[in-house]
């Protein structure tokens, strides 16, 4: 018997000494084995199939030696889930939960618990991808359509999109959309005449700042001023105003918009959804666009996000709308079905001519906001809006009694007070407010604003009033002389509280009249409504989502849990920084981690999507080159195989795109790159390159490519989309890049949310660090930093906690092992499927990186006139319970598969078995055993209704349709609709909830 087992007979001290230290060590390695799918036995089996002696040997074959990291990442060791959550509690407690009445587009709110539990904290809602495969995404498509309907109703404009990143970027999108709408007017300007965009100076400061950031590279001159005195010129193409404005003032815009229209100028209006319950909507006073933040509809503050911005416009502008639009179509059976409409506007098709570079929306948050409206309905929302307004009136009245003059002529929820003088000082009020844990809006002009929200109660009003009253408390020996000059003010009787808003600004039109907003008001009904939608969708909670380039890895519960902790959820983004020390600590640590992973010197956490990161990176390059006196550099080289966001972002940054050819093997054509770099060497700004390439290969020439760009004076921007194949093994700095963005929603475990949120921080080498983006309200960024690119200083701060958790839980060894296993999983799929489907692009030794492309074109050709396509395979996979791989990107007629490290061997095998079975089904068509038109592939996906119908006229069996392999019986996911008619939806565009009775008629 070993010594350490002899614990029974001796003293308790001896017994404790005898417990081996290995048993009490923290549960270091556990999370790694939870996050990574294949265990040691499975890996060994997979390596045999792949034909590699060890995983290290495989990695040596996959990654060129010259770019390998020589030392492990210098990161703290992994900690167990329990340890992590316990330590994160301590960090969270450093965030102090003050009541914030700061406004600026962010308001505290109550997320109904039924929505927290069933949506926000539910992997069925947060793990799915963007609903490109509409047949297995009907639930969230319906929810997004509900969001669009709500926005459309409240703004009084018929077309709304399915959300944008934040209010400030929505303002920038409004500006650029009006620029496109007014192209005729702008092209009529004299040469060298700069088009002008008028912006009211009463917009939120962060809105103004992002407009500055986005207008300058496009050659748009911003004219900022008082809209009541705006003087338009023949160069003015558009104007942007806000009501309620940044101080809470509600404006009657009729006169302004009418004057603008007379001058042929289009108008965008920033606004607040809750105010529109009571106030005349922008659409009814002539606005062309309305936009704003839907956060206060049940989405936590989260220290800045993520939240869904809304964007609505007139029907004639629908083809110019940025972002995604959900529309209504019909399926193969003539039933109603939802899908994303008008995708040709988007960057993956139109590239540098796209309406926007935005790829990520804020689907999860838009769904929260839409469901909040469903739950409360028009009556509930009216009650909430009236209560907020009543509290604002009451606060104005009570403070008037203390001598504080309320300064807004008209208001909804935000009141602004002058300091009457006498013994009152703003400093004393501020001190009293802080002592009572209250954040008020201390304004540059010396006044104080208080923005109220649905969570306000009597106690809050009493606390605010007390803080103001305490501000008058005279300290002993207080000299009256100090304030003597203000005695006249003090003596003046308090002015009457103004009417909050005049009758002609009262809303008269009905809203949210659709039954969906008038049905699910009991919690039981709401819970079932949410579940009914959720059951229609495939997320990671049902099966692997093998989308190439999307990195659909595990979003672990321990990473997700902290999001709704009030210490993270309830912090206002502009709260004093010493109230957010927990967040600040996480940012500092996360920045350090991301520097270590990329090999760079500094990080900006501000960009709140990958595409936003690209734009930010290009603007940083631009600022750096200008600072060096190289303002003429405006050419960006982009490989033909690049993501569509790259050219779209370059166009937004005012740069010219020059496309670099690919070789037949799919690599960047180095000769062509050298020629183009040389041809443009005076003007070369940057190369944008994805690594490993979008073709799923570690190009051997990458260092040479970066060298050529540097020789010609350019910077190398690395698109971080494929970072999951780099972490711990190589890095952007190691391959020779100067900066990159990181899709935290791919590599660093932020869930895709069914189409957003995302986060796209950028990491840069030391020479670019001074130019990282700043913020107009909160100090951040480089000393010569560019203007803000997002509304909040650290973007969607709330979800940064997920990536922080990911790195802490895995540590250096765990993350590196994750990369290795992502590569193993991809090569395992290749080995199992390559004899069934040709694989495009491999390294010379036949290895792929973390993803691979199957070429369906030869099979289409072989399967006759009708031809089985990549799309048929994608739809047929639904019958097997799988989401399709990426269809036709980066090569038309192909499927790109990325398994990620999180999928265990069993799941990979089921996917491969499904693909092999489908290959057999294709062969039956090729061999004329199956009908060329009426077969399982062409008719996929098969709904329960179709399979169980009394009538069955297909030449194959119901079982072949619905249960093609034994494993499907236990895992069946029934597609909610049959194959969707895409052309019908685009030719007959409907993008709000259609009336209920139409449902079954279709066509």
């Amino acid at each position, binding site marked *: 018997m070993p010594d350490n087992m002899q614990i029974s007979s001796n003293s308790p001290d001896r017994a404790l000494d005898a417990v081996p230290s290995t048993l009490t060590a923290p549960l270091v390695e556990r999370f790694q084995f939870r996050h990574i799918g294949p265990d040691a036995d499975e890996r060994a089996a997979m390596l045999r199939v792949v034909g590699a002696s060890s995983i290290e040997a495989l990695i040596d074959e996959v990654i060129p030696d010259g770019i390998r990291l020589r030392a492990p990442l210098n990161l703290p060791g992994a900690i167990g889930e329990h340890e992590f959550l316990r330590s994160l509690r301590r960090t969270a407690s450093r965030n102090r939960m003050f009541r914030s009445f700061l406004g600026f587009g962010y308001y505290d709110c109550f997320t109904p618990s039924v929505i927290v539990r069933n949506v926000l904290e539910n992997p069925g809602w947060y793990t799915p991808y963007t609903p490109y495969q509409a047949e297995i995404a009907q639930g969230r498509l319906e929810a997004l359509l509900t969001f669009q309907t709500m926005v459309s109703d409240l703004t009084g404009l018929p077309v709304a999109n399915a959300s944008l990143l934040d209010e400030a970027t929505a303002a920038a999108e409004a500006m650029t959309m009006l620029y496109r709408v007014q192209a005729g007017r702008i092209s009529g300007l004299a040469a060298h005449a700069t088009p002008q965009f008028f912006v009211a100076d009463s917009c939120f400061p962060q809105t103004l700042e992002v407009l500055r950031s986005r207008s300058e590279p496009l050659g748009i001159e911003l004219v900022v001023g008082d809209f009541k005195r705006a003087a338009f010129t023949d160069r003015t193409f558009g104007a942007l105003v806000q009501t309620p404005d940044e101080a809470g003032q509600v404006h009657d815009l009729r006169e302004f918009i009418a004057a603008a229209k007379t001058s042929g100028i289009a108008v965008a209006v920033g606004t607040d959804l809750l105010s529109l319950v009571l106030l005349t909507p922008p659409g009814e006073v002539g606005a062309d666009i309305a936009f704003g933040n839907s956060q206060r509809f049940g989405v936590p503050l989260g220290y800045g996000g993520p939240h869904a911005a809304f964007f609505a416009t007139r029907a004639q502008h629908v*083809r110019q709308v940025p972002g995604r639009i959900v529309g209504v179509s019909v399926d193969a059976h003539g039933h109603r079905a939802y899908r994303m409409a008008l*995708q*040709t506007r988007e960057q993956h*098709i*139109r590239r540098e001519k796209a309406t926007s570079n935005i790829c990520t929306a804020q689907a999860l948050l838009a769904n929260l906001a839409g469901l909040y409206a469903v739950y409360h309905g028009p009556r509930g929302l009216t009650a909430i809006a009236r209560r907020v307004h009543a509290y604002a009136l009451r606060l104005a009245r009570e403070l008037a009694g203390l001598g504080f003059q309320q300064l807004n002529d008209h208001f909804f929820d935000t009141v602004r007070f002058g300091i009457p003088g006498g013994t009152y000082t703003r400093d004393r009020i501020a001190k009293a407010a802080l002592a009572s844990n209250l954040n008020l809006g201390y304004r540059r002009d010396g006044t104080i604003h208080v923005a109220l929200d649905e969570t306000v109660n009597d106690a809050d009003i009493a606390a605010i009033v007390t803080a103001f009253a305490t501000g008058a408390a005279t300290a002993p020996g207080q000299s009256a002389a100090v304030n003597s000059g203000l005695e006249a003010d003090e003596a003046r009787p308090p002015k009457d509280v103004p009417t909050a808003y005049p009758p002609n600004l009262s809303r008269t039109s009905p809203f949210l009249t659709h039954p969906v907003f008038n049905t699910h008001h009991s919690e039981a009904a709401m819970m079932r409504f949410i579940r009914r939608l959720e059951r229609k969708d495939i997320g990671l909670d049902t099966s692997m989502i093998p989308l190439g380039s999307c990195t659909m890895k595990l979003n672990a519960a321990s990473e997700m849990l902290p999001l709704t902790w009030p210490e993270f959820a309830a912090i206002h983004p502009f709260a004093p920084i010493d109230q957010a020390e927990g967040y600040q600590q996480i940012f500092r640590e996360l920045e350090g981690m991301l520097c270590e992973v990329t090999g760079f010197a500094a990080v900006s956490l501000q960009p709140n999507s990958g595409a936003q990161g690209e734009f930010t990176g290009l603007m940083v390059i631009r600022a750096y080159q200008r600072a060096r006196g190289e303002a003429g550099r405006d050419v960006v080289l982009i490989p033909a195989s690049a993501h569509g966001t790259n050219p779209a972002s370059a166009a937004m940054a005012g740069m010219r795109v020059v496309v670099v050819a690919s070789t037949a093997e799919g690599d960047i054509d180095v000769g062509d790159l050298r020629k183009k770099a040389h041809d443009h060497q005076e003007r070369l700004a940057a190369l944008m390159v994805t690594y490993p390439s979008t073709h799923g290969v570690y190009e051997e020439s990458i260092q040479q490519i970066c060298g050529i760009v540097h020789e010609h004076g350019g910077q190398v921007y690395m698109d971080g989309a494929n970072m999951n194949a780099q972490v711990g093994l190589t890095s952007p700095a190691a391959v020779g890049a100067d900066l990159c963005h990181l899709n935290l929603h791919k590599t660093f475990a932020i869930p895709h949310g069914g189409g957003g949120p995302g986060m796209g921080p950028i990491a840069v080498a030391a020479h670019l660090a001074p130019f990282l983006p700043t913020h107009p309200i909160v100090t951040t960024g480089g000393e010569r930093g560019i203007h803000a690119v997002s509304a909040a200083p650290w973007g969607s701060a709330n979800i940064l906690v997920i990536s922080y958790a990911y790195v802490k839980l895995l540590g250096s060894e765990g993350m590196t092992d994750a990369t290795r296993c992502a590569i193993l999983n991809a090569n395992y799929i290749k080995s199992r499927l390559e004899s069934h489907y040709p694989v495009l692009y491999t390294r010379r030794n036949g290895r792929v990186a973390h993803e691979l492309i199957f070429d369906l074109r030869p099979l289409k050709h072989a399967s006759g006139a009708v031809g089985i396509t990549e799309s048929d395979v994608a739809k047929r996979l639904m019958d097997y319970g799988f989401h399709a791989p990426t269809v*036709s990107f980066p090569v038309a007629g192909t499927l790109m598969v990325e398994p990620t490290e999180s999928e265990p061997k069993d799941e990979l095998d089921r996917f491969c078995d499904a693909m092999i079975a489908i290959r057999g089904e294709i062969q039956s068509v090729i061999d004329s055993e199956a009908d060329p038109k009426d077969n399982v592939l062409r008719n996929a996906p098969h709904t329960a209704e179709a399979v169980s119908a009394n009538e069955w006229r297909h030449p194959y069996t119901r079982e072949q349709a619905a249960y093609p392999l034994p494993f499907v019986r236990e895992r069946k996911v029934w597609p909610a609709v049959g194959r969707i008619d*895409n*052309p019908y939806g*685009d*030719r007959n565009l409907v993008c709000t909830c259609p009336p209920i009775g139409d449902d079954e008629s279709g066509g």
Partner: protein
Amino acid sequence: MAYPTAYKYTKDHEWLDVSGDRASVGITDYAQQQLGDVVYLELPHVGATLKQGQSFGTIESVKAVSELYAPVSGDVVEVNTALKDKPETVNADPHASWMIRLKMADLKEVGELLDAGQYADLVK
């Protein structure tokens, strides 16, 4: 589908049907196949003046969008607005689906275009 021998063609896949100094313009069968289901057309107003090779509109399918280019210079004298309401006609009968009619500015430009045989070789 055969390419009408009476038409002229461009490398950008438009066809031109000349009658005197007037000509109709549409897109070829090859072009509609490449685009797939056409869902939307943006066409110019009558009276617009086009230079050869200039974009006169866009054509959108579910999966792609493409510019339309004037095969020859001229003034737009007629626009097929019916086509805008039934864009699927472009798929069904591309060589009869004219989009605009031009009063040509320079008849010599017609000679620079491809004939049916040359075009068929181009897309083979």
